[in-house]
Structures are given as structure tokens and as C-alpha cells.
């Protein structure tokens, strides 16, 4: 843990937890927001998954402090919280990149080019699966199916869609992310959010980006547009039938 500072938080917890350098501490605001999440549910424990997303929105991963906070607020043991946090793949156990780049290598995307994209990105970035570039910008991962098979091969950045990728487009994407140039998802907001910004949305605190981006991509519209060309419609509702 070289380069780590021992930080005592102001959360009334034992001062034993360490937060690596550069990771902001959880604050009283975090705790207030965690309590706000709890009020959404009939039973407090239902708030645990969004609370863990909230922790990630502040610290970029599920830290020991974050586990303690969730445990305290929900009356659980840290082991109970940890058991949940380690079950779900979106929770990170250590600090990772600002941009989480996932290449779908489930069967269909893999066959259509995802395997080659992932191979080339590993070479290009010099990291393997679940590893982060030294500058801390990019974590690379191969993904399971992300429900966009009609846009294969698919790459996700912080769970935004980058459709119909090639090795060249994917290399270009990560180059831009590393050099701080603006990029935007194919079906998503006008700008790429950071991992922490994205985590806040998953915690149930909406950003103002919902109305940005297309309503549907070309593949989504394939059937509708064909129906329109061919003049095909669903049967009219009874109250729409021409007499």
C-alpha cells in the first residue's frame, strides 16, 4: 500500500480503514444520501445495491469505509455487506480506471469481431482483463452479453453503448479517452460520463442527460421503417376502424 495515506473519516467509524491516495473520503453528504435511498424502500435492506453504487460514485470502488457505512446504516455486519458486494460484477474491489471499457466477448459479439477487438485493445493498452492502465484512465474487461446483439460487435464505456465497433474504431475510442478528447456513445448522452458520474445514476440520483442522444439506433428501427415502406401496420383498434 505504498503511497496510501491513513485517513480517519468523520463518520464515527473506527479510524483503522485506509483509503488509497487520491480516493476522496465518504462524507456526511454520502451518509445523508444513503439514508435518502433507504426511504425509497418498504424494508431498509433493499437499499443495499443502490447504496453500494453510491459508494462507488464517491470513491470509484467499494472501499472498506463504504462497506462500513452500508453496514451501519442498515444494521448489518460488514461481512453481510461484503458478501453482497462481492457477488455482483459491477462492484469494484479496488480503485480502477475512470473509464471502464468493456468488450463484449459473449458468443455472438465474439464471433462477429469482439474477440479480435479485445485482443487488439489488450495489446494497444498493454493491460489484460480486469487491469487498469498506469495513468488510471482505462480499465479493460471482457463482458458478457450486453443486450445489443443487433449492434454487434459492441463495446461499453461505463455502461454506455458504442455500437458496431471494429478494432480500429475501438483503438481510436480508447486513444481519445486517454488523451481527454471528447467522445460520445452511439446510443447515449452527448458526452461520455466518468465511472463515478455513471454510478450516481445507478444509485438512483438522476443526472440531466436522459433526453440527450437518439431515441433509437438504426437496427432498433429496422422493422418499423420496413413496415412503413411496405405500408404495413398493426390491426386498428376497434375505436379507430373506419365505418
Amino acid at each position, binding site marked *: 500500500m505504498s503511497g496510501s495515506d491513513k485517513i480517519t473519516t468523520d463518520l464515527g467509524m473506527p479510524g483503522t480503514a485506509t483509503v488509497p491516495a487520491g480516493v476522496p473520503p465518504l462524507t456526511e453528504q454520502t451518509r445523508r444520501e444513503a439514508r435518502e435511498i433507504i426511504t425509497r*424502500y*418498504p424494508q431498509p*435492506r*433493499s437499499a443495499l*445495491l*443502490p447504496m*453500494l453504487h453510491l459508494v462507488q460514485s464517491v470513491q470509484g470502488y467499494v472501499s472498506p469505509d463504504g462497506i462500513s457505512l452500508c453496514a451501519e446504516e442498515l444494521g448489518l455486519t460488514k461481512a453481510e455487506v461484503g*458478501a*453482497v458486494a462481492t*457477488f*455482483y*460484477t459491477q*462492484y469494484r474491489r479496488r480503485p480502477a480506471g475512470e473509464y471502464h471499457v468493456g468488450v463484449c466477448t*459473449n*458468443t*455472438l459479439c*465474439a*464471433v*462477429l*469481431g469482439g*474477440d*479480435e477487438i479485445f485482443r487488439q485493445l489488450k495489446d494497444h493498452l498493454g493491460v489484460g482483463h480486469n487491469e487498469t492502465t498506469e495513468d488510471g484512465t482505462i480499465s479493460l474487461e471482457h463482458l*458478457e*452479453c*450486453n*443486450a*445489443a*446483439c*443487433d449492434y*454487434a*460487435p459492441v463495446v461499453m464505456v461505463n*455502461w454506455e453503448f458504442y455500437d*458496431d465497433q*471494429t*478494432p480500429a474504431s475501438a483503438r481510436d475510442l480508447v486513444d481519445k479517452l486517454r488523451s481527454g478528447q471528447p467522445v460520445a*456513445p452511439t*446510443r447515449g*448522452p452527448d458526452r461520455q460520463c466518468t465511472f463515478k458520474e*455513471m454510478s450516481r445514476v445507478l444509485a*438512483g440520483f*438522476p*443526472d440531466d*442527460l*436522459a*433526453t440527450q*442522444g*437518439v*431515441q*433509437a439506433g*438504426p437496427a*432498433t*428501427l*429496422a*422493422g*418499423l421503417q420496413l*413496415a412503413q415502406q411496405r405500408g*404495413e401496420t*398493426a*390491426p386498428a383498434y*376497434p375505436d379507430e376502424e373506419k365505418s
Partner: protein
Amino acid sequence: MLTPVLSRNWGDADSFTLAGYARHRGYEALPKALAMEPDALIQLVKDSGLRGRGGAGFPTGMKWGFIPQGPDGQGAKPHYLVVNADESEPGTCKDTPFMMANPHALIEGVIIASYAIRAKKAFIYIRGEIVHVTRRLQHAVAEAYQAGHLGTDIHGSGFDLDIVVHAGAGAYICGEETALLDSLEGYRGQPRLRPPFPATHGLYASPTVVNNVESIASVPSIVLGGAQWFGAQGTEKSKGYTLYSLSGHVKRPGQYEGPLGLTLRQLLELGGGMREGHELKFWTPGGSSTPLLTAEHLDVPLDYEGVAAAGSMLGTKALQCFDETTCVVRCVLRWTEFYAHESCGKCTPCREGTYWMVQILQRMENGNATEEDLVTLLDTCDNIFGRSFCALGDGATSPIVSGVQLFRQEFMDHINGTGCPFDPVASTVFAGAHA
């Protein structure tokens, strides 16, 4: 052949807004439903013949009818509606684009369904890995509150409803309804023993309906059109319209909405056919858990009965089409790796079986397998199928058993030769292009 209902407004740039939905008769079903008796709504959905679009095809109205009502016993507990928006089955990509383009159709369906089963709280459990769809749902729920479609005493009906959009955190198993409920309660997403079923002991051990996105989103159209209108579409036992998701080596992959019972031949024609110069080798009718089919099955009607009669399952209508450049062993290996990765670990057959099947299939793909390995592989499937705690284990055996049945020689070629004889570059979309 194409009958856009759920997708009818997707072409409008503001289709995901309340205004964009309202232009296409959005929220017109709601006052009509609120003027009906809840039991009459359940009967309407039963009469329509709507069956669950999440894969299993269970009659939606019947599920609603199982919810105990009245002042005693389980009926006295709060009732819940939980929408399964955890779309993760490999190949399945219908609910995600639907919710991105038309979230209000889902919201209107949730309100009507909640009213019918007498739930005052509904949850949309959305997969955590599709953040823009989460945004669109959050936005739609906020708009619906502003319009008075949600909250207390909705449109003077005396009916109260709150919707919570709840993001998961990455676990395929949470698409299984009881695992989803455990996850929504803040636990590891592991399936529960049934009975008791969610209808009586679901979320917080209270009466709960868990429905797929597309099922719930179909409800407003049934209220507007009536059971006969809905039932006149589709086939005798598989009524209504649905979203077919065409993907893979086809010219125009995408979403095609039409009546149940279309065939892959018809859908491939709509999608422009297989890519130039190539032919269909194998396909899945409804995701990777549904046994593989081949060109022999091009005329199988894609409804619950037709696909079952062909030895597979309709599933989610995720039509993944692979051409002759594709190695079936590679595909089966990759799907098996998926199931091994996603096995929740609760039961031994699935947890251990999927792990060992990956080892065997890797040996095959690398050219280090023996004929005995093939026997062991199928034997392991026998020990998983029907012996696992939930359908994930059964699903894991589908690609293997069907793959070997249909392409035994190709498996043997991997064993007797020097591993995979296919060139993976040939099956990419950028094959031949400078990438």
C-alpha cells in the same frame, strides 16, 4: 407481416417523452382501466391470451389471478408488482432498445397492472449495465408523476401507486424471478426454493407478480384494443404481437415487430437474408438457453408450441443467426464459459458441472481432447439437466446437447484433428476489410 404496436412511435425523435408517447394514444388506456373493476382487468388480460414474453410463456392474466386478495391471510399483506428488466440472456436485446425508445408504454402498463393486482408499490428491476436506459426510465417516471399518472389518488380514482426504478449490479442470475427478488431485498441474487411461489410469498414474503418488460408493456394495447383485437393476432395458443430480435450474420439485424408464429424464413427475408455469399448454419430461437436449430427449421412457426415441437423453446425470440464460417464448438465453449461465470454457486450440479464442461470444451477447441471427453461432456449435461436448483443449469446444457446432436462430426473433427479447423477472421463483420 409487420405489426408495430410497441414500436409504433419509435421513429419519432421524442418517442421516449410523455408527449411523444401521448401522440400515439399513450396514457389513453389508463383512465379506461381505472374505470374498470380490478378483477375485470385481470379477466381481460386472461381473455387476451397474453403469455409471458420473458421466455417461459406463462399466461400473464393467470399469474395476476394467483395473487391472494381480500382482508385475510396473505391477501391482507401489501402486494407488489416487480418488472423484470434484467435483460441478460445471450442474444436477447428487445427490452433494452424498447425501454430506451418508449419507456412510457412500460410505465402505463405498470400502473394498470398494479391497479389490477392491487399493488401500491411497483419496482422496475433494471439491469445495471445499461445506464442510458436507466436514465430514460427515471425520466419517464418523473414525467408520469408530474402528469398525475403516479402518486396518490391517481386521476381521482382513489388508487395510489409509487414506482421505484432499481438498478441491479451485474448478475445474469437475477433474471430468474426468485433470484431477482432476493437481489431486490438486498441479498446475493440466488434463486429460492419453490413453492411457495412469488404469487403468495414473493418480495418481503408478500404477494408479488414478477413480469417481463414486454409483457407489461403489452397491457395498455390490450385495454385499448380489447381481448379480441389482441387475440386475433398470432396463433391459436400464442396470441398477440411480439418483438423479434434478429442478429448475427444477417444483412439488416434489428427489431422486427409482428404476430407470434412468423418463421425465421420470413424474418430473414425482412432482414435482407444472410450476408452476401453465405448461408445459415445454425441459430437460436430465443437466446443461448434454447437448443440450437438449423436451416432445416426455417419454417418452424415461432410460437410457444411450434418451437417446442421442433425440440427447442421460443424463449425471448432472440434469433442469433450464424453462417457457415462459424465454428459451433467455439460458440458452445463461449456460451458454456458464460454459464460458468454466471452460475450463482448455490447448487453443486450447476456450479461444478459448468466449470468442468468449460475445461473439456477448451481442450476440444485446442485440439487436446479425446473421444472420451465427448462422452464425459454429455454425461455431465445429464447430471446437470433436471438436477439443478433453477433453469440456469438446464439452460447451460442446451447449447452443448443440441450442438453435439446437430454437429457431432464437427466436434469429432476437433478431437481427431489439431483443434479448431475454422478461421475466426472469416466470421467477423470486418472480414476482408482493413481493420
